[in-house]
């Protein structure tokens, strides 16, 4: 039998085990002595789910030249022919609110980046529009109008200072316009007139566009054309699977088109079926100047233009296998409860007291310990049994303070027993949770019966509490995270539901970007610069999850259950969190696992 070197003229490296996998091994073959197999490292193509937009919509536009870590979506349709002015920014983890368009619209053209975006034309009741706006990362400003009112652009690509659009409505059009950042110029016409559902990729000087609606019946074109900066040339037809209402990303020679669950890549000559998408929506918006940064978001169900979505998917072409973040069911508690003190991590947690969620209701001191799979009842209960108490720390070094009604008692928990320590200066319940450790904690705000919401904070040093600087917004049931010298609180009740966010630097509280949703009684995990906030109850509990990076908020995958006044993971992280207290009064818990990236070698087999 001929060996590998005889056939291919190359030798195969031999390793005891797989080497540390980097991109330098892409396409190489080696022999793994331990497994006795030939191995290689291949490029994987796949879509991974991103966070949903804050506002689901169809007919949105996007920053074509953006990326998976800096996308921009604007405008759209949610039932009103006026359209939306809402802008959202994507940071790779979630969407945050951006500056609103000056003119609400849908089916507009989009180009540019998250900090230099371009929106042109579109539809705003009652007609197509000529309005053009530029985005600077914060706000939109009006610029030179399009020469003619157009919506549903067949092709909208490029940057804020070098954009291209072709075709569109009303009526199938062959018109092509270039924008240089200040004015529009008509240029070479399309060979085939298109009116909508025809998207491409590329730049102002090297673009392509495929398929589209050409009017009439059946009205679908498979024609593909390439643009060289002055004229369009017909090339090979596109596959029917992505012919109409697809989104595009990439360049003229390396692009991907995305529609429904289908995708197709284009290399400048041929189309090839791409990986499947999870979300079966059409008219998505493509972002990404290259395929390595491509993403698609929003859209509607085919045949049902009133079914909108905010789903987001990212295209990944890499040696990495990316696994999206998600919540999963955790072990069931013995005692369903709300308004409890908790401490610890996702896999080593303690719940200390609280209020019974079911009859006979009332407070409880029941203490339960979690090992990552099951809860066990601790023989020693929390002596503070009123519920609405607060906590922080770890499973074996926890702190519980306050509670109903106006309790000042503070208790240290060592993993088994409680010890009374210095009392709060002001007895109260529902202060912030999860800031600091057993020997250095903060209690911010709270509820003092019969009904005041102080701005007062207190700091604990391991033996006693002393008054700290006041928070700016009075509230109770704020979500806390961080340390005694680098903390963050968000949301709460005053008595309306709040989204106000404040950071503490050890000496003063500063109001920062507000959380995307208003609610008290949310759970938290993490630090001032990387925390997860989940659930809460504005009017009925929520499953909402968001992540804070110390500056901006972004959406994250939601919990399966709605939850409020829950136990959480004071010592956890933004990628490993625990939540309890389902609104249905059940004992169910959930565990959060953040996004992971791994490189896995492929085993070669004979066939």
């Amino acid at each position, binding site marked *: 039998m001929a060996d590998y070197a005889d056939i291919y003229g190359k030798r195969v490296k031999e390793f005891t085990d797989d080497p540390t996998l980097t991109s330098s091994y892409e396409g190489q073959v080696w022999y793994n002595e331990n497994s006795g197999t030939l191995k290689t490292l291949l490029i994987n193509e796949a879509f991974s789910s991103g966070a949903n937009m804050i506002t689901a919509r169809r007919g949105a536009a996007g920053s074509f030249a953006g990326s998976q870590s800096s996308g921009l979506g604007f405008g759209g349709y949610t039932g009103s022919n006026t359209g939306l002015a809402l802008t959202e920014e994507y940071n790779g983890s979630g969407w945050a609110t951006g500056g609103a368009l000056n003119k609400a619209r849908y089916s507009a053209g989009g180009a540019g980046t998250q900090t230099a975006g371009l929106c042109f034309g579109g539809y705003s009741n009652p007609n197509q529009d000529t309005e053009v706006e530029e985005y600077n990362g914060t706000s939109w400003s009006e610029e030179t109008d399009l020469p003619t009112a157009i919506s549903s652009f067949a092709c909208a690509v490029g940057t804020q200072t070098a954009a291209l659009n072709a075709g569109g409505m009303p009526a199938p059009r062959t018109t092509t316009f270039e924008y240089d950042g200040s004015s529009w110029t008509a240029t070479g016409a399309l060979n085939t007139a298109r009116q909508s559902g025809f998207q491409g990729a590329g730049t102002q000087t090297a673009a392509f566009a495929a398929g589209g609606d050409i009017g009439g019946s059946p009205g679908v074109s498979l024609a593909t054309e390439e643009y060289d900066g002055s004229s369009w040339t017909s090339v090979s037809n596109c596959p029917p699977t992505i012919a109409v209402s697809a989104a595009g990303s990439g360049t003229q020679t390396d692009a991907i088109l995305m529609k429904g669950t289908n995708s197709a890549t284009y290399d400048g000559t041929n189309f090839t079926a791409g990986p499947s998408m999870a979300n079966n929506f059409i008219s998505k918006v493509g972002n990404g100047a290259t395929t390595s940064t491509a993403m698609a978001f929003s859209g509607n169900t085919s045949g049902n233009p009133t079914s909108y979505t905010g789903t987001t998917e990212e295209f990944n072409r890499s040696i990495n296998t990316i696994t999206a973040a998600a919540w999963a069911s955790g072990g069931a508690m013995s005692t369903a409860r709300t*308004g409890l003190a908790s401490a610890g991590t996702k896999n080593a947690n303690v719940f200390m007291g609280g209020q019974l969620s079911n009859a006979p209701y009332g407070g409880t001191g029941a203490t339960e310990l979690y090992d990552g799979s099951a809860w066990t009842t601790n023989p020693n209960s929390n002596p503070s049994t009123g519920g609405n108490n607060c906590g922080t720390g770890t499973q074996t070094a926890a702190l519980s303070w306050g509670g109903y009604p106006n309790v000042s008692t503070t208790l240290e928990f060592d993993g088994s027993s409680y010890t009374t320590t210095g009392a709060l200066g002001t007895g109260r319940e529902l202060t912030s949770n999860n800031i600091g450790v057993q020997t250095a904690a903060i209690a911010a705000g709270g509820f003092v019966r019969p009904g005041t919401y102080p701005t007062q904070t207190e700091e604990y040093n391991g033996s006693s509490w002393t008054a700290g600087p006041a928070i700016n917004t009075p509230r109770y049931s704020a979500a806390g995270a961080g340390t005694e010298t680098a903390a963050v609180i968000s949301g709460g009740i005053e008595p309306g539901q709040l989204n106000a966010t404040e950071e503490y630097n050890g000496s003063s509280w500063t109001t920062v970007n507000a959380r995307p949703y208003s609610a008290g*009684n949310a759970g938290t995990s993490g630090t001032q610069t990387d925390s997860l906030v989940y659930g809460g*109850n504005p009017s009925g509990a929520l499953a909402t999850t968001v992540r804070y990076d110390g500056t901006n908020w972004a959406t994250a*995958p939601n919990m399966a259950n709605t939850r409020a006044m829950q136990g959480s993971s004071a010592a956890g992280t933004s990628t490993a969190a625990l939540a309890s207290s389902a609104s249905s009064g059940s004992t169910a818990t959930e565990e959060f696992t953040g996004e992971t990236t791994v490189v896995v070698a492929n085993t070669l087999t004979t066939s």
Partner: protein
Amino acid sequence: MAHFIYGVAQNTGKGFFTAEDRRAFFLRSYPANVWMVGNNVDGAMWMAEKGGVEKTKSEAQALIDAEVTAAQTAWDAKSDEEKAMTPGRPTDVILP
């Protein structure tokens, strides 16, 4: 085709739904052990594997209504002091 499958299944705790499940199909929990999952192969398989009893949307809504009504009645029967401690009267839950 309907977007969702509705069913009743008892949450057994750890492993009842996994992160992989959440990535594969839509899943949301409601009162009365009602689960709403995406109408795809993965969602249907999950419901079957968990011993879920499939319901129509109206049947599922009726189960939720009964559970919520019972919770509201229980909350209304609480003393003012008990009410003051809790998040609030359970609100109606409408399946999307």
